[in-house]
Structures are given as structure tokens and as C-alpha cells.
């Protein structure tokens, strides 16, 4: 059974009550349809109430849900064909990043995606979605080919962050990410980056330098994991909820801050409640941006991507101006 979060339990309890009532009604042959109808309305209301007002920490939990669809789950719904291409040609094939050529709405595209595993065994194989330098090197290799052959690039982000172990340090994790950022910033083909789950820090950003940055409704994208942030700020990892709110990492926050271009709707309760519906929404939004970007000239795409990055940041330039910090300042 699908794992439930505490905040979902009132809904589940009501749903159970309805099924009990229906069973009782059937067993005893008493008509309770009116009572059931009332309760079902209440469920619908509760769902909207709860899922429509999720706090950042709750969204993070949904984004990390063990059954949240990963990149491989979306493939059959997003692409007519997908040919996975492996390896960095230097050291290894990193299974926390998948890459290849796909046919998207009839157009050949290069796809790069972070992949968490389902279950312990696959998670170990995929290092829980945390790429090593070879993963980023593979991404650069395949994206360079997309540029060479004029193919648009779609990236899908879903990682707690880049691998943080001795092996990653030895093989230059920092430089691998930096090279990825630099490479992506220089392409003349359309680049669309979508955060489909967890967007963890530099490890996520490495695939996030898109002309368009899209976010699934319950994904999050953060400079630091809320637990780590709480640990640094309050020496207390249990305050992750407060940190999650402070970090402003939801899709809505990121749209407001000029990073995310569009939010892709998920079914109530999250993508795992209805994979096909989520994939269809995702497919439509990506397609919309792809059509738009493909109409631009290569040099314009590159320049606009640069200007998009260039505009991210909030600061005060004229020291004579009062330093009131308000919503207005976000317009720079």
C-alpha cells in the first residue's frame, strides 16, 4: 500500500469510514446513500483543503515520497522512443544519471535525468540518486553531442544532492558540477530543465541551466536540504519544517524569485496518485516551451539563457536608497 503522511490521515480516515458505512449498509440492507454522499463531499472538501494548502515541509515529503514517479516511470508516457546511452568515456557509467536520445512529440531530443531507485536494491545501484563526477561527465558528453547535432536538450532533476563521499572528492565533484554549469550555459540548442522531485543543491543545479526551468507542483529546489539547514541554524535537525519554510524552496517561491518559469500541475496528493495524469501535464508543458524555443535562432537561445541567469539575484545597488526589504525589491 502507498505510504501515507500524517497530514493525509484525516482523508484516509474519512474514506475508511465511508467504506465501513457502505459495508454496513450492504450487510444490513439499510439505505445510507445520503450519509455516504455527505461524507464523500466532505472527503472532496478535505482533499482540496489539505492538498491545496500544503506547507513547504509537506511538499518536500511528497517530493521525496518513495513511490513518487522517477524518470524511468515517465519514459513510456513522454517519449515515442528512448535509446539510453551510457558512460562518461573516462571512468564509469553512473546510474544515478540516465541519458540518451528520445523522440518527443516526433522531435529527436537529448534527455538527461537524475534517477533515484525504487526500493533499497535499486537505490544502492543508483546511489540514491546522488551522482558522482562520472555522472556529470556523462551528462556533458551527451549534451555536447546534442549541441553538435542541433538537438534540443531536456533535463529532469531529481536528486537529494551530488554524492558526498571520498570517491566524489577524489574525482573532483566540484569541478564536474562547475563544468556542467558552464557547458549548459553555452549551448545554442533549446534547453528545458524540469524538477520532477527533489532539487537538491549544486547536484541538482548542475542540470538546471535551462532556457526554461519548469517545476512539478510538489517538487522543491533548494540551496541546502532543510535538515542540514536546521542543523546549521538551530543545531537541531528536527526543526527541518521551520527550515523548509525559511528556505523558500517551493515551486511557487521559485516562480516568484525568477528561477522557475512555470509550475506543472500534479493530481491532488501528488504525482504518485496518478502517473499518467502527471505525465500528460508534463508532456504538454514541455511541448509548449519546446515549440516556443525551437522558433528562436541558436544565438538568441544562448543569449537569452545567459540573460535569464544574469537576472537572478536580489541586491541593493544605490546606497542612498532606503534599505526597506519588501516584495517590491524583488523586481530589482
Amino acid at each position: 500500500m502507498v505510504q501515507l503522511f500524517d497530514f493525509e490521515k484525516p482523508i484516509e480516515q474519512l474514506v475508511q469510514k465511508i467504506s465501513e458505512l457502505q459495508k454496513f449498509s450492504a450487510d444490513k440492507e439499510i439505505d445510507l446513500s445520503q450519509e455516504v454522499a455527505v461524507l464523500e463531499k466532505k472527503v472532496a472538501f478535505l482533499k482540496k483543503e489539505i492538498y491545496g494548502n500544503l506547507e513547504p515541509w509537506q511538499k518536500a515529503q511528497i517530493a521525496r515520497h518513495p513511490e513518487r514517479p522517477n524518470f524511468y516511470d515517465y519514459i513510456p508516457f513522454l517519449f515515442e522512443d528512448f535509446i539510453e546511452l551510457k558512460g562518461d568515456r573516462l571512468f564509469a557509467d553512473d546510474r544515478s544519471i540516465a541519458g540518451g536520445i528520445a523522440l518527443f512529440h516526433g522531435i529527436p531530443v537529448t534527455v538527461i535525468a537524475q534517477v533515484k531507485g525504487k526500493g533499497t536494491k535499486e537505490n544502492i545501484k543508483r546511489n540514491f540518486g546522488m551522482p558522482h563526477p562520472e555522472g556529470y561527465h556523462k551528462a556533458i558528453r551527451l549534451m555536447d553531442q546534442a549541441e553538435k547535432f542541433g538537438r534540443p536538450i531536456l533535463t529532469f532533476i531529481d536528486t537529494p544532492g551530488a554524492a558526498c563521499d571520498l570517491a566524489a572528492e577524489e574525482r573532483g565533484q566540484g569541478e564536474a558540477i562547475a563544468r556542467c554549469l558552464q557547458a549548459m550555459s553555452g549551448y545554442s540548442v533549446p534547453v528545458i530543465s524540469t524538477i520532477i522531485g527533489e532539487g537538491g543543491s549544486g547536484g541538482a543545479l548542475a542540470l538546471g541551466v535551462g532556457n526554461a526551468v519548469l517545476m512539478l507542483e510538489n517538487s522543491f529546489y533548494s540551496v541546502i536540504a532543510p535538515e542540514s539547514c536546521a542543523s546549521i541554524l538551530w543545531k537541531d535537525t528536527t526543526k527541518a519544517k521551520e527550515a523548509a519554510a525559511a528556505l523558500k524552496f517551493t515551486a511557487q517561491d521559485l516562480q516568484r524569485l525568477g528561477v522557475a518559469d512555470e509550475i506543472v500541475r500534479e493530481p491532488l496528493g501528488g504525482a504518485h496518485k496518478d502517473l499518467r495524469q502527471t505525465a500528460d501535464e508534463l508532456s504538454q508543458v514541455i511541448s509548449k516551451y519546446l515549440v516556443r524555443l525551437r522558433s528562436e535562432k541558436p544565438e538568441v537561445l544562448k543569449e537569452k539563457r545567459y540573460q535569464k541567469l544574469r537576472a537572478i539575484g536580489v541586491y541593493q545597488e544605490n546606497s542612498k536608497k532606503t534599505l526597506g526589504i519588501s516584495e517590491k525589491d524583488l523586481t530589482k
Partner: protein
Amino acid sequence: MFKDIFRKKKYVTIQSAPMQKLGPSDASPKEPTTSKKELPDGLWAKCPKCGEVLFNKNLEENARVCTKCEHHFRISARGRLALLADENSFEEWDAELVSLDPLEFPGYQGKLMEAMEKSGTTEAVLTGQALLDGIPVVLVFNEADFMMGSMGSVVGEKITRAIEKAIDLRLPVVIFSTSGGARMQEGILSLYQMAKTSAALGRLAENHLLYISVLTDPTFGGVTASYASLGDIAIAEPNALIGFTGPRVIKQTMRQELPAGAQTAEFNQEHGLIDLIVGRAQMRSVLARLLRYHQEGAQYGATV
């Protein structure tokens, strides 16, 4: 509330003179290169490597390098500038850029004020143009005393502007990084400064202009994963700690104890990540030679 600070400090072009005070960056050095200070401020400093008690005055005169064991103490941005730039040649850029608190992040405003007081600067980076042994160059220095050199919107913007100006002026860029990484308190905005600075360096590279990255103690996280790792030439100071994830986090997260010497400049060089390890005393002359060999006219390209 911030106003006073800006009135107090007027950042105009300052003169660089080799003997000026280089500190106070290491007055309270951070672990792991240095232990907690046990000596009263100002007069003496104890070398965290060899234990020698040094007169701060002597330490300053020796570019904050231990006179006994050559341990490199941390040094302020302006201290570095003084050691490198020709006298009166530095023109500071974008000093008026200061941080806001776009996320209304708990405690950030207070931290910014503290940092300004501690460092005597307005942000964690100093940028500008200077002559180095007569060669015009764009110089960028992280300031460790300002929130451990962390990169928020201002740091990203100042570095990006410096790189863009270098492109306009067709000048090489030298960046001294000292940083704990991206600045948590500006959230995603800080994260994207990594992409912004990397993109700007990409343009510099397309313009065939030299970028020398000098990594100093400590360089970690989002700074290692952006501008610090993109040098045509990567130089590190001896024994500087350089990495992506800090040793404490690796230990906590992966329950993995790093071997002795891991993440030092020497470890990084062994693993192919650093071109040159250069002591502070030789830094200026090494940079001058490298800059000179890359000056236009020195190369093949310009002769045809």
C-alpha cells in the same frame, strides 16, 4: 539601521602598499586548519601547525605566513591585494552593491551586520582592476571574514560584472577563492549564482581570455562547484583545504572518516585537480610570469 555602516565606510580606490596591515582575517581562525586562539587579540598569534607564538607584526610583515614552518594563515581580501597589485594601481569596482534579505530569512540581517563589522567590508568579495608587475589584470578576492566568504546575490553579481568587464577590456582574470560555498540565507538565489558566474566565465573563455583560479583555505561547496574550479590554470596555496563537501558533513552523512591529508591542496593535486601549488611568497612572481606568457602579442595568434 544599515545606514550608519554605509556612511562610516566610504569605499573608494584604496592604495595598496606591501607593508599595510593584512589582517585581521585570522585573528579568530576557524577549524580545521587552525585551533582556537588562546592568546589575547592583536599582539601575538599562535601558529596552529607548529605551535610557535608569533608577533602579529612579524606575521603581517611575512604576508601572514608562519616564520618558522611556513604555515599559511588566512589573510583578508585587501591583504592579498596589497601583496599583489602594483602601488596605487587598484581601481575597485561595484563596492556599492550590498545584500538584501529577499527570503526574510531568520537572522540574516543580523548576520550581515555582524559580518560588516567583523570584516570592515560590505560584502564577501572585493573586485577591481589593477596592475600586477605592470600587467593589467582583473582581480577578485573572497573575504573570509564576511560570512566565511559565502556566495549570495552580491558576490555572484560582483564576480559576474568583473568578468564581463574583463571581456570588455580584454583583460585576464585572477580570482582568489576562500569560501564555505553558497549562502544558505538567500536560498535558490545563492544557488543560481553558481550558474551565473560559471556562465560568465564561459563567455570569458569564448573570448580566449585567461582565467587563473587561486584556491585558498578553505574553498568548498558551491564555490568549488562553480568559479573556483573553472580556471584555465588552477593554483592552490600550500595545505589549503579544498573540496566539494566538508569533512564533517561527509562523516555525518556517509559515516566515512576521511584519511589524513584528504582535501588538502596536495591531495587535490595528486588527484589531478590543481596545476600548481604556490606559496604566498612566490604568488606574485608566478602570476606575473603566467600573465605575461598569456599577454596578447606574446602568442602565435597575434603575430599572424
